[in-house]
């Protein structure tokens, strides 16, 4: 239920209820009683609604905690490794394999042009080799890098302020209402200026409802007693019900320690009850009922909130545990891939560059040796390519049951669907909404879209096990928006960095886009959002 709709419903039901009451018993009802009844009913319904909401939230948290408790760490780690392997295969494909492929092509050109002038092609091989080594070093460095805390992630939620916003306007409104009612019932009110001051003071105590509820309640009771004792009683009205209800609720629901909260309720009850019984006996029972009812409602909410908090703490601890298990498994996986990759490619790139240099240098003075060097270059690139394909096939087969199609470097939007399917198959709870990207979106951009989704899902698998993820790809005039939101523990459970997000931000910036990461809607979970500039076809 939307909050605004909820309020409207409460008001509607209250007015209807009060009107019905008047209709049933017209003799006893003045117009004031209708207003009074409606307000009372509205208050009660609001309390009920708050209690129900707190209960629902607690149930939610408990459900999540149960779900996490029932998730096996091995299973979560396995899933994360599966997703990670898919990504590693894609990375190797995009970064290393494509470089080796270009070297192979240039070596073939050198072979073709051998009798004319192979030098440009040989230099191309060398330049490619240098670039490949740079990329490889970056990739290996990222793979081996231990996870470090993201400094931006350390900033926690803002500390609670002493006087939360919203309490001041509420207190001001109630003080105004109390004084207005005092004027309205002028004839029956005694006590003069002192009474007015005490009335305003009593209404003003709601200011403490969040910061120090018990103190506010005690003060309110005290002011009522003081009014009674000094003969300048606090004047009656609807505002009393509101103030007493708010404070009793706050004591029961919010006071840090329950005994203090209950003491606040008792002092409030004693102060207001005793004074009213003496000064305004006809209204005293209603006030007592409102006070006790609010306190009971507050207690119920307190129970629900506390149990929700406990569940959240349990869930958080479990999520941390799962994340640690996952971290370990993924790290081992990455190191093993880094080792394979280094063994396979690093020395091969060196061989290729050195021999293409030798081929270039020796071509005039020792054609046979030069030729032999070119053969080494061609053989090495071809072998490396084959071994790389084997490596990625093994990685990816281990992950998703089937090797990636060879040469599939570009990814279209259809691939995002396929990716999500595969990740679901690995056990992640993912929902997907993709708008067709349209004809104006180039291959480079679709690849970035794919990578954003892939990276974010990998991240979720590792850092927010057991949570559900929503993936959304939307096109807007001039931009493509990729949104991946999970309902996991957010920043709290370990830093959400990984080599992924850093590299991903680079990728997104390279096509002129922006990557934002942070808490999801309502401050819960984690969100990765990429805005990519695009000439989207109409």
């Amino acid at each position, binding site marked *: 239920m939307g909050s605004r709709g909820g309020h409207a419903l409460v008001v509607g039901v209250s007015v209807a209820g009060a009107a019905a009451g008047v209709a049933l018993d017209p003799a006893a009802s003045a117009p004031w009683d209708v207003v009074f009844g409606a307000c009372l009913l509205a208050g009660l319904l609001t309390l009920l609604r708050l209690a129900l909401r707190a209960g629902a939230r607690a149930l939610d948290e408990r459900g999540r905690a149960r779900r996490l408790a029932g998730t096996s760490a091995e299973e979560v780690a396995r899933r994360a490794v599966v997703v990670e392997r898919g990504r590693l295969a894609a990375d190797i494909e995009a970064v290393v394999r494509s470089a080796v492929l270009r070297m192979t092509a240039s070596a073939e050109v050198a072979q073709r042009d051998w009798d004319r002038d192979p030098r440009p092609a040989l230099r191309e091989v060398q330049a490619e080799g*240098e670039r490949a080594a740079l990329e490889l070093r970056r990739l290996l460095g990222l793979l081996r890098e231990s996870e470090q805390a993201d400094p931006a992630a350390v900033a926690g939620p803002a500390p609670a302020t002493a006087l939360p916003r919203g309490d001041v306007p509420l207190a001001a409104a109630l003080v105004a209402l109390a004084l207005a009612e005092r004027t309205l019932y002028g004839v029956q009110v005694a006590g003069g200026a002192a009474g007015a001051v005490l009335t305003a003071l009593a209404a003003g105590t709601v200011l403490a409802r969040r910061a120090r509820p018990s103190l506010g309640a005690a003060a309110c009771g005290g002011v009522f007693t003081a009014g009674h004792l000094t003969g300048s009683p606090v004047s009656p009205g609807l505002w009393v019900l509101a103030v007493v209800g708010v404070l009793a609720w706050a004591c029961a629901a919010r006071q840090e320690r329950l005994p203090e909260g209950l003491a606040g309720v008792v002092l409030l009850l004693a102060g207001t009850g005793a004074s009213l019984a003496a000064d305004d006996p006809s209204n005293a029972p209603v006030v007592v009922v409102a006070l006790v009812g609010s306190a009971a409602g507050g207690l119920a909410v307190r129970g629900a909130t506390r149990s929700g908090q406990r569940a959240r703490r349990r869930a958080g601890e479990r999520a941390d545990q799962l994340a640690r298990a996952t971290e370990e498994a993924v790290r081992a996986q990455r190191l093993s891939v880094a080792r394979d990759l280094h063994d396979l490619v690093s020395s091969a790139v060196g061989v290729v560059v050195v*021999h293409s240099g030798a081929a270039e240098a020796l071509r005039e003075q020792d054609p046979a*040796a030069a030729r032999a060097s070119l053969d080494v270059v061609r053989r090495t690139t071809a072998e490396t390519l084959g071994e790389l394909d084997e490596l990625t096939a093994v990685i990816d087969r281990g992950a998703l049951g089937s090797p990636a199609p060879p040469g599939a470097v570009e990814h279209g939007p259809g691939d995002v669907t396929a990716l999500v399917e595969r990740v679901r198959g690995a056990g992640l709870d993912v929902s997907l909404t993709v708008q067709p990207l349209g004809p104006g979106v180039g291959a480079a951009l679709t690849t970035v879209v794919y990578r954003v989704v892939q990276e974010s899902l990998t991240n979720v698998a590792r850092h927010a096990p057991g949570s559900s993820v929503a993936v959304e790809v939307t096109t807007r005039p001039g931009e493509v928006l990729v949104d991946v939101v999970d309902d996991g523990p957010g920043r709290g459970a370990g830093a959400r960095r990984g080599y992924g997000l850093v590299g991903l931000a680079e990728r997104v910036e390279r096509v002129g886009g922006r990557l934002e990461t942070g808490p999801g809607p309502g401050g819960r979970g984690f969100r990765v959002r990429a805005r990519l500039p695009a000439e989207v076809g109409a």
Partner: protein
Amino acid sequence: MSAPAGSGGALRVLVVDDHEVLRAGLVALLGAADGVRVVGQAADGPSSVRAARELRPDVVLLDVQMPGGDGLSAIDRILADGPATRVLVLTTFDLDEYVFRALRAGASGFLLKTAPPSELVRAVRACSSGELQLAPSVVQRLAESYVAHPPAGQRPRAPGLDALTPRELDVLLVLARGASNAEIGRELHLAETTVKSHVTGILTKLGLRDRVQAVVLAHDNGLVGR
């Protein structure tokens, strides 16, 4: 430089790499260059030490990442046997921890296996004349390597340091950040030739082979902010 008769004054190079195909490529590449002669090859640390003792090369081109990790310990022994020999380290990646350990072990510089061939030849020549420089980024990582792996035990302060003039010490401190002579001159408002003579003075007083080792010594002795 004591080049034996018959080498025609060419730079004598020993190539050490466990990867046979790569080594063959390096030998072919260096052999094709004017003024460079490959006098020997080796495939592991111990045999490189033996070969260096026998052949007295001007430059040893050495892969430090050979299986067994014996490239690093070879540096020490090669330099002990032949103080005039300079070691140029071969590596796949420039900012590897290996590189810094090799520099700290006395290597005069390093070279990427993927460097362009002309660069390879140039580096071998520069190394033999002690003119190799470290890029500032490398010096920075070298400093970090001292933080990550502090020198074992409390080493005695290098004796020559106290013999340096205040000006020479200034020059050493700037040099230790990877600055060239021209950059040092700009920073200290000195003529480049003056800087050059200061550097020579520093190397002589400290008994160092080249400026790379001066950088290492400055870090070793904690002269550069850590």
